[in-house]
């Protein structure tokens, strides 16, 4: 696990890139202000003694939810491409991916 960074030090510009949000400088500035405040608030969880407490990943105690390996019809090609913003030759098109 990477070393624990200083809690409450959110770098909005960096995180926005991770989340693929192209923000303007003024947006970044505003969000930096707003979110620093929110982060400072949620930091209060550090007060809790959580030793030995199991995390709750699921609200229900269900396990082994499986499906049989049986094919079911999906969407027709036409239905799928009807929602595609840009397509050609039956494929979804995006600007050229740079490897």
């Amino acid at each position, binding site marked *: 696990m990477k070393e624990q960074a200083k809690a409450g030090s959110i770098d909005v510009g960096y995180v926005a890139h*991770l989340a*693929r949000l192209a923000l303007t400088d003024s947006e970044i500035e505003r969000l930096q202000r707003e979110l620093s405040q929110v982060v400072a608030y949620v930091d209060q969880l550090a007060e809790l003694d959580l030793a030995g407490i199991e995390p709750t*990943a*699921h609200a*229900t105690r*269900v*396990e*082994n*939810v*499986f*499906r*049989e*390996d*049986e*094919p*079911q019809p*999906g*969407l027709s*090609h036409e239905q*799928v*491409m009807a929602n595609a913003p*840009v397509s*050609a*030759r*039956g*494929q*979804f*098109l*995006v*600007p*050229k*991916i*740079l*490897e």
Partner: protein
Amino acid sequence: MTKDGYIPSIGLEVHVQLRTRTKMFCACRTDFGQPPNTLVCPVCLGYPGVLPVMNEQAIHLTVLTGLMIGARISEYSKFDRKSYFYPDMPKNYQISQYDQPLCEGGTVTIALDGERKEIRVVRIHLEEDVAKNMHFGTSSGIDFNRAGHPLMEIVTEPDIGSPAEAHEFLVTLKQMLAYAEVSDCNLEEGNIRCDVNCSVRPADQTALGCKAELKNLNTFKGVQAALEYEIDRQTELLSGGGTVRQETRHWDAEAGVTRSMRTKESAHDYRYFPEPDLMPVVLRRELVDGWRKTLPEMPRARRARFAREYGIPEYDAGVLAADKHVADYYERTVRCPANPKAVSNWLMTEMLRLLAEHDKDIRSIPLRPEALAELIKLLEDKTINMTTAKELFAELFNRGGMPGELVAARGLTQVSDTDALERMVMQALEQNPKSVADYRGGKKAALQFLVGQVMRLSKGKANPKVVAGLLTKKLDG
């Protein structure tokens, strides 16, 4: 050990497409080669509001693989979201397994040059495959048919010591997976893909060297070639006083070199967290034991048993046991009953040859084990000769039927009656005075030619041994 005294350490990450009828988290078919975006549904397209549901068969096959290699099957395992943005990712997170995979540990034993070596496996986990990108001029196209296909990832320790060992590992793994019908392991269909980690260190150093990761290895031979190049590259670098950079390198099969890849993000921050839409997988001992019983006998064990039980040579046993379906066919034929060595010969020669020529799977041919057993019996009884037998084999292979019926219907019975053959023998001798002279002059090979002539005259039905005997008597007498 390389020629310069450096020791390579190689680890593999093998991605295997599982042989299920449907995808990992939705009920779309997994057929290969369909027109783009025809095997898709809202789930595998990442539409708003959809949810994944686990394919039990994928869990089953992964556990079987773990059992085959002697891994620990986790009693509790779960799925996690692995986040990154890429056009082949329908949700821009991949459902994978992070810290609690289905299987941990295990070994794959490889045999190279008569020596056995155990390659340790770190873990086996399950995840969903991504879509396929195709590149056009100024754009890229995406086909989501493959998105969501169940993918089993097998990660080894860096125990592999040479490119040849890496190749052997992959061959052994493929055989095991094909045996248990876990995967079709068809390289052309992309059923099995491989990333490789490779480092070298001086012989007197215990710590491993800095490793490079190699990508774009599409064939087993490619893996071997890429490793050979990379080990040379690293060895040269180090012996020249340089250092190896930890990086990802792309294998260019045409040029035969590895190249550093454009640095994207230095290291992905995958932001793993437990998948809230999927419930944990709890595999209790009774269930796993039940699944263990469905494991087929493994290739190595089957080979040993063939040699022992049927008294055939190790070599034959090895060839027959290499493919599970050929081995199944062999046993069914022997149990008809039929002579084990004879069956082995037919399978190793005619059968494998015709299967390769016609690109067929032994399970799909009309020639049934019972028919092969009957053919062998007809030959043993000398009812037919080898030439006829081979012709019949080819016909049965293509059209099915029973050889006995064919022999009767077409009067293919071998002619062994000396009176009947006498005339043809005389004819052959008369028609080939040169060969007679050659034979009498010491060229024993001329006899075979004369036998062939009699065979021709008899339309292949003469018993060659009897013919040879008659000819010899006449020539020598």
